[in-house]
């Protein structure tokens, strides 16, 4: 099973060059049944990553481009009257895919955003009184464009909290970019990718992850981290229990990926920036993006052992 996971990582890394940590975190997020927010400039490989993951994990893939005039129905789907049958027939929206890429999510109005976010949280959508379950597995990769603040609706903290992780891909290293320039077009590689895991295997893995051992000492460390965010003065607010659960789940998945059946503090530290970075604000600047510095503070100052 784990060799297959290593193969998954290997394959994705063939497509998205030089981004091993981010790819590993993205897979961790998926294994932990969380959703992923990628905050980065356009053209950094967000779509490629999502697409490659979907292909290799054998997931159906849909992309929703969020715009300011996007309506909830455009995401969830609408019932259309079918003249032939004389009935309203539900046309499922793009959300009914196993891996959904919600591009530039902050360009849509809050109403449309919340339609997606509710679906993410509940795992089902209710349209016109009928509750329809979303496919299983269900994984959302949303992207945000940090630069284009004009005409955007920044996600409120409550909604950011629903993403297990927030990642930033960043520019590729020189060697990776050289390989990218010299190699085949990514667009041509993607259709050729073969699924490595089927749904049953993915589900089995996802079911194994909660069994990864978290010892008392490890939980103590997670508690120390969370308590620090709640008591130290530089934090505008502390981490929610949802955040601590997310942290533990992500750390388990990370440990599983590292071929271990127990979590060590280093696992928590590895996922900490991605898991809590978007949930923290500096007291001095509650609207800003001080999360990164706070996470570094946590990593540095909270006793790991």
């Amino acid at each position, binding site marked *: 099973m784990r060799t297959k996971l*290593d193969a998954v990582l290997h394959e994705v890394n063939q497509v998205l060059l030089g981004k*091993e*940590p981010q790819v*590993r975190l993205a897979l961790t997020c998926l294994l932990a049944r969380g959703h992923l927010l990628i905050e980065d400039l356009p053209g950094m490989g967000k779509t490629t990553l999502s697409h490659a993951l979907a292909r290799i994990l054998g997931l159906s893939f849909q992309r929703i481009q969020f715009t300011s005039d996007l309506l909830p129905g455009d995401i969830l789907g609408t019932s259309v009257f079918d003249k032939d049958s004389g009935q309203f027939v539900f046309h499922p929206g793009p959300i009914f895919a196993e891996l959904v890429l919600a591009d530039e999510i902050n360009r849509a109005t809050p109403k449309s955003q919340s339609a997606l976010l509710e679906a993410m949280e509940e795992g089902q959508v209710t349209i016109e009184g009928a509750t329809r379950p979303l496919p299983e597995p269900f994984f959302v990769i949303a992207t945000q464009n940090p630069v284009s603040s004009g005409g955007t609706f920044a996600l409120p903290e409550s909604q950011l909290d629903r993403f297990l992780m927030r990642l930033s891909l960043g520019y590729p290293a020189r060697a990776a970019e050289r390989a990218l320039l010299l190699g085949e077009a990514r667009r041509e590689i993607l259709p050729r990718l073969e699924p490595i895991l089927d749904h049953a295997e993915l589900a089995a893995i996802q079911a194994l992850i909660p069994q990864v*051992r978290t*010892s008392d*000492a*490890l939980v103590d460390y997670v508690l120390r981290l969370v308590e620090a965010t709640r008591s130290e003065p530089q934090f505008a607010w502390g981490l929610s229990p949802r955040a601590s659960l997310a942290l533990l789940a992500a750390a388990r998945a990370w440990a599983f990926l*590292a*071929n*271990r*059946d*127990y*979590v*060590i*503090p*280093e696992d928590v*530290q*590895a996922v900490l920036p991605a898991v809590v970075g978007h949930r923290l604000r500096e007291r001095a600047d509650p609207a800003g993006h001080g999360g990164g510095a706070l996470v570094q503070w*946590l*990593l*540095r*100052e*909270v*006793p*790991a*052992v």
Partner: protein
Amino acid sequence: MTRSQTKAAQPSAVQPGAVQPIPRIALTWLLVAQVLVILPHLLHLPFWIAGLWLLCAGWRVQVFRMRARFPTGIERIALVIATGAAAFFSRGSLIGLDGGALLLVATFILKLVELRSRRDGLVLIFLGFFVVVTGYLFDDGLLAALYSLLPVTALLAALIGMQQSGMAERPGATVKLAASMMLQAVPLMLLLFLFFPRMGPLWSLPNPQQAMTGLSDSMAPADIAELSQSPALAFRASFDGKVPARRELYWRALTLEHFDGRRWSQSWGAQQRTQPVWLKQGPSVSYSVIMQPTGTQWLFALDVAVVEQKDIYLMSDFRLEKRRPVTQNLMYQVRSWPQAVREPTQTRGMLSRTLQLPGRGDPLSREWAEQLRREHTDPKGLVEAVLKHFNQQPYSYTLKPPTLGDDSIDDFLFRTKKGFCAHYAGAMTFVLRAAGIPARVVTGYQGGELSQSGDYLSVRQLDAHAWVEYWQEGRGWTSVDPTFQVAPERIDLGAQDAYSDDEAFLEDSPFSPLRYRNVGWINDLRLAWENINYSWQRWVLGYRSEQQLGLLQRLFGSLNWKRMAVAIVGGGGLLLGLLALWLFKPWRRERDPQQRQLRRFEALLLRHGLRRARGEGVRDFAARAAALMPRQADAITTFAQAFEAQRYAGGASAPQELRLLLRRLRRELPWRAATRRQ
């Protein structure tokens, strides 16, 4: 096991084999410390030493700024030779305290220009401590002792700065740590001061400087045109009871029995350590004396003195002598019987010594003596006649006597009639001897200044005095003071008060506070300062083995070696125990056995310069350590894995296993805390 998140091993700060440079902070503090160390020495060192320091410090700073290079071998040799030659020419010799101190300080300065590695820095710092200690040979006063805390703190700061640490950017923090270390050392210092056994000196330094001041062992009044008056302290005496009247305070130092026509000097016969015969009579006075170092063996006491101290003897001429020259402040307890009868019977060779006169010369005086002998059959009457002569004839007391010719006694008695105590004492002894009465000159000090509180007397060099004692069969020695006949105020008021109007008084010391004794508040300040100094000398410098024994006896009752050993070991043990408690804080001891082993693991690696960051996991830490210490990598990793297995993987808690692994790691680590890692 794949781990994408690998922290890059931090580059080792120390390259193997590379010379460790002097950190900036250490250099700064070294320079500061050098200034502080050398400053008090400038009082007795030639001034070019300051220039040498400026040269060397400037050079070293330029090296640090990469504007200059280190001196080459030839340059260094030239510097050493030039400095050695300069030292030789300014001191005339490189041997002895003065020359030695000069050489030591010069070495201390020269080492600066070849300060390349950390090792050189350590040499320089330890040399600095030694230079501080040599300063006590020149001045062991309270101010000097307090001042030496400054250079010691600066040297400590340099020593701390020399260690590689994050503090190397903050000079303030370094000196703060140094100061707190000094404070922590205080209780230990006090304990050692009180209880550490005092041993006699293994060697003593000849101290030419101190031998120059004070009394000398001979007296030639004829050759002195001007008596220089020094306000320097000679000794202090504190009486157990009432202080005797000033005119009874004749502090005997020496007796001069041999006269060669100009110079009075000691005779061999008076240098015996045989107890003279004397009979206790009248009341006794008890007092303790703290004397300044003189470089000579004689001590000061009132007649007839008894000292219960092994290495102090009463000599055959009733003076006290110490076995070794007094090179440090000395305190001794004396009991004196002023009215005792001294040597009532004649001893062998006494008459020949105390009637000795040069073969010829001073005919007028001899003639006068003959005349006196004819007039007075009773020696006492004769002595009184001489004293009366001084009293009634126009003799006067002066600090600037006219010089005397070949027949110095005649010249003084019948022509100039001006002089100070040595003239009168010498002339009277001469006349008494010529008249057949055994007599000798006694030199010492007269009087002393009572402290504000009335506790003790300060006797200064300007209280130096000379008087006469003559011998009669059956009555022994009697002291008389011819100066008293001429200048009774000299005795009654003391030299300071009697002559403070005299122009010659303290002419050489314009800044001596004694000159301004008429200004009330200056005098008060001076006396208060005297008090402090007295306590310093009495309780700190004077704390020798006798005082220590006394204190210990008071504390622990009758003293024997067993008890002493128990006290020292017990006290030391108690102190160490408290220190250990404070350092290890057992009440804060880790209760978790695994954690405890982890702390030991950390302590072990810390000794080799590796500290686990607070937020660093054990696995990361072990990986970092293993990268820096590849030889021990296996042991380090094994421990980390075992710890992880027990703590996180649900393995059974087995601290014993961790302990064994730690032991293995300790065996593999090099014994010395390596600053250079393999």
